[in-house]
């Protein structure tokens, strides 16, 4: 019996299963080497001295006995709490207005709120300088002495984080059940009680989720604080200062570990909450039709106009300032600030480097993400490895960019690491960017794959068609819209990210977003704004192109979607 079994097992050797195993193993290896091992290396570094000897917690003791450093923890928390408060409450009202009111012009408002997604986080900070800085046009409106500090950081971050909060809350508000409202109305419940007893509970998970997402985003932000923080130190800028300013890598690692903690905690809470939210709505729920209430709608329109006005003001200011010849002495408009070759930061070359890097990240990244998501969702072999794959794919969400960047230095810059060849090349920038933004892409791919019938693989196996043929002929075409979404998401984020790549570029691979940082450091605020504007326009162009292409492709290849 056992002899026959082993004989059968030998006959059962088939290339397809082995190919699947190989891809799963490659996926696990990829995420281990590009994510987990660098992070662990960083953890080890935080326990070593400059010479690489193990010194236990001495670095941490040194850190906590230095009040100049520990102050940053409170500063970071302060910034994160205030920003979260402002952003979440604003986005809450805004999302309510967009989903539940009879307000007109919702589409327009919604489009305007997407604007910050395309700007590098440095852009609002630069705008703040022109609006409220020492020579700012609205300087007198500022209630505090100086925009350089917590107020500037909170305002800049609020601009940048707003669309993220809005997206989650709109989803939460959209999951409404009209039957509950009808029941409440039939019992003559006053509307404030309806709000407290029906509306609020139905969005509670979305709300908690938003709070944690925004908290994570803001406590880990680097760009805004760097540009407009002045003397106000936060954890992310401390890492940068320790590493770039003082070459104290150990202390950089210590601060990174400390920054990783709140991010991890809020990540775990967020995942927990997420699980609740999806199962909340019953399949028989009836979607709510927003009703009109003139006074409420007018007030909400005013509110949304103010918010969008602020967003437009910030963007408009940056654009305007980028064309001013020499603020505030020569207000004539010119393209002088766009002559990047005259400035620090790598000039136009860095812009083209950014384009190249983003294109690679979009192309390679989409392929990797989709393949890994496919393997983790649709195939049978190696269940444990696939679980690990799913877990690792979620982790990047919890890792702040600047921490990932530093971890990459530690891991890839080791002389005895064969991967060290990548150090200073375009490849490491692409890899880092891909890993940094991996989770959202992975979730997008998984969501669309889950909507595809699970039996397709079984059917094609029964028809003796290899799985890769079905992947190419069926699964990929079906998931095409989300594949395009992933690629444009990667492109835009690769264009605008600063934090993760700020440690990793070399003289040949300077990037535009980093150039913004350097020009600002060198005092060339206007060219910095110009570059930031250029990045934003490029991202917008990419998004428009994506929209046109997907429209075209979907028209042509998705004929079957029409009935």
């Amino acid at each position: 019996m056992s002899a026959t079994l082993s004989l059968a097992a030998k006959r059962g050797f088939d290339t397809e299963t082995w190919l699947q195993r190989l891809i799963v193993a490659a996926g696990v290896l990829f995420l281990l080497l590009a994510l987990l091992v660098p992070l662990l290396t960083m953890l080890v570094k935080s326990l070593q001295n400059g010479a690489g000897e193990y010194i236990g917690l001495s670095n941490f003791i040194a850190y906590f006995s230095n009040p100049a450093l520990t102050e940053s923890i409170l500063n970071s928390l302060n910034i994160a709490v205030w920003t979260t408060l402002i952003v979440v409450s604003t986005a809450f009202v805004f999302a309510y207005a967009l989903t539940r009111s009879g307000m007109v012009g919702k589409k327009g408002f919604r489009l305007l709120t997407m604007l910050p997604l395309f700007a590098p986080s440095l852009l609002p900070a630069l705008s703040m300088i022109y609006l409220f800085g020492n020579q700012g046009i609205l300087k007198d409106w500022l209630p505090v002495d100086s925009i350089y500090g917590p107020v500037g950081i909170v305002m800049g971050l609020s601009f940048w984080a707003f669309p993220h909060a809005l997206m989650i809350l709109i989803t939460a508000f959209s999951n409404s059940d009209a039957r509950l409202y009808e029941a409440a109305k039939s019992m003559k419940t006053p509307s404030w009680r309806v709000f407290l007893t029906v509306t609020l509970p139905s969005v509670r998970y979305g709300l908690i989720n938003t709070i944690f997402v925004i908290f994570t985003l803001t406590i880990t932000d680097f760009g805004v604080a760097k540009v407009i923080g002045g003397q106000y130190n936060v954890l992310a800028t401390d890492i940068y200062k320790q590493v770039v300013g003082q070459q104290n890598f150990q202390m950089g690692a210590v601060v990174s570990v400390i920054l990783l903690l709140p991010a991890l905690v809020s990540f775990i809470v967020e995942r927990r909450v997420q699980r609740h939210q999806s199962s909340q709505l019953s399949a028989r729920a009836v979607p709510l039709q927003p009703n009109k209430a003139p006074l409420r709608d007018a007030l909400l329109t005013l509110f949304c106009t103010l918010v969008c006005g602020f967003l437009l003001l910030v963007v408009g200011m940056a654009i305007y300032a980028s064309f001013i010849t020499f603020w505030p002495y020569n207000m004539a408009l010119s393209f002088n600030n766009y002559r990047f070759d005259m400035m620090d930061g790598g000039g136009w070359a860095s812009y083209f480097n950014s384009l190249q890097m983003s294109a690679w990240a979009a192309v390679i990244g989409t392929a990797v993400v989709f393949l890994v998501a496919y393997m983790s969702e649709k195939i049978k072999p190696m269940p444990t490895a696939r679980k690990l794959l799913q877990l690792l794919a979620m982790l990047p969400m919890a890792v702040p960019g600047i921490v990932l960047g530093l971890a990459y230095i530690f891991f890839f810059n080791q002389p005895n690491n064969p991967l060290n060849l990548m150090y200073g090349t375009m490849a490491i920038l692409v890899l880092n960017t891909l890993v940094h933004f991996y989770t959202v892409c992975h979730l997008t791919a998984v969501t669309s794959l889950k909507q595809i019938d699970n039996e397709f693989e079984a059917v094609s196996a029964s028809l003796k068609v290899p799985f890769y043929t079905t992947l190419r002929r069926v699964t990929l075409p079906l998931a095409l819209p989300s594949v395009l979404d992933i690629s444009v998401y990667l492109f835009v984020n690769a264009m605008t990210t600063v934090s993760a790549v700020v440690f990793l570029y070399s003289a040949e691979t300077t990037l535009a977003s980093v150039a913004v940082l350097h020009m600002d450091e060198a005092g060339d605020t206007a060219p910095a704004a110009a570059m930031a504007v250029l990045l934003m326009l490029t991202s917008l162009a990419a998004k428009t192109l994506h929209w046109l292409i997907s429209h075209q492709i979907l028209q042509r290849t998705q004929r079957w979607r029409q009935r």
Partner: protein
Amino acid sequence: MTTSTHYLQIQHLRKSFGSFTALDDISLEIKEGEFICFLGPSGCGKTTLLRAIAGLEQQEEGRIVQAGRDISTLPPQQRDFGIVFQSYALFPNLTVSENIAYGLANMKIPRREREQRVQSLLDQIHLPEIGDKFPGQLSGGQQQRVALARALATEPGLLLLDEPLSALDARVRLHLRNEICALQRKLGITTIMVTHDQDEALTMADRIVVMDHGRIAQIGTPEEIYRQPATEFVARFVGSMNLLPARVLSHNQLMLGRKEVQVPLMLPPCDEGTLGFRPESVQLHAAPWGLDRSEQLVFQAQLEQVHFMGAFVRLELGYDAELPQIHVDLPVEQLHSLNPAVGRALWLSVPAAALKFYPQEGQNRNPVSEAGHNGQMNLGVAAMQVAGA
């Protein structure tokens, strides 16, 4: 190694999901060209067994031999079968023709021949015109037939169908039943169909495998399953059956409720069990004269309700307050000749051959009956009655 005439042999198959045993020591043999139904309630492991045969689930123990080849550990692509899922799993972005030709593409068949094959399959499913449509543009029944054509396109030796009709409305379902049967007979392809619908199994299958909690409860032709349900479970699940809890008093004496009756059976040595008989096996009499109690069960019950069911009437009779009502099905004419009034006491007789006694679970698992040998009697009528009920 296996020289038997059986096309598919399943030996001691076992499969569990964590601590839950989905398949428990399943053994089964299927002849070439047979139409087999796996029948059982939801969650009894029918789909799991089908998927194990397809290689889509890997069993922990046991062997599967198909056409003399041990396929126990082969991956699905190295086995020889076509499959239709409940969801049909048609590729929505490919046309009907492309769907059907999907498995032909890598068989190195010239294009012309491929097109011919597709067209002849479309003809066989009586949908010659729909080749250029997309699955989303078809009705459920049409989709189902396309899925069938796709599974048959590569001419597999074994066809597996997992509840292929359950997503369709009743009328289409009846029509497709016949169509699938006709196609199967014509092609002579060995077929296994999973269903939880007893009518479907009784009318379509050559043999039925009744499953319960991961185990096989009974294997047999529809007639055997209907006439000789091996366990109380099968009796309850297939057709309708009067099942009366009883205490055993002696080898031929039962306590039914508070009444003692003599039964024309050799009862096994046990304390309790269930006495079962089909509603249509009961005969009604105005008086007990001439009824032989050693050849039939005879008792008196009160007529409580009469339901007109079309071809027959169903009477509900009360025998004992502690027992469930007894159902009796009669042809309409017979009722007229008897013409009983509600409330009247009638005499019932059940021939020994139609009586089953199931000892209580865990006491003695062999059912007792006298009629194991004369299964040739025409009970197709009864089966149809059930199918129509």
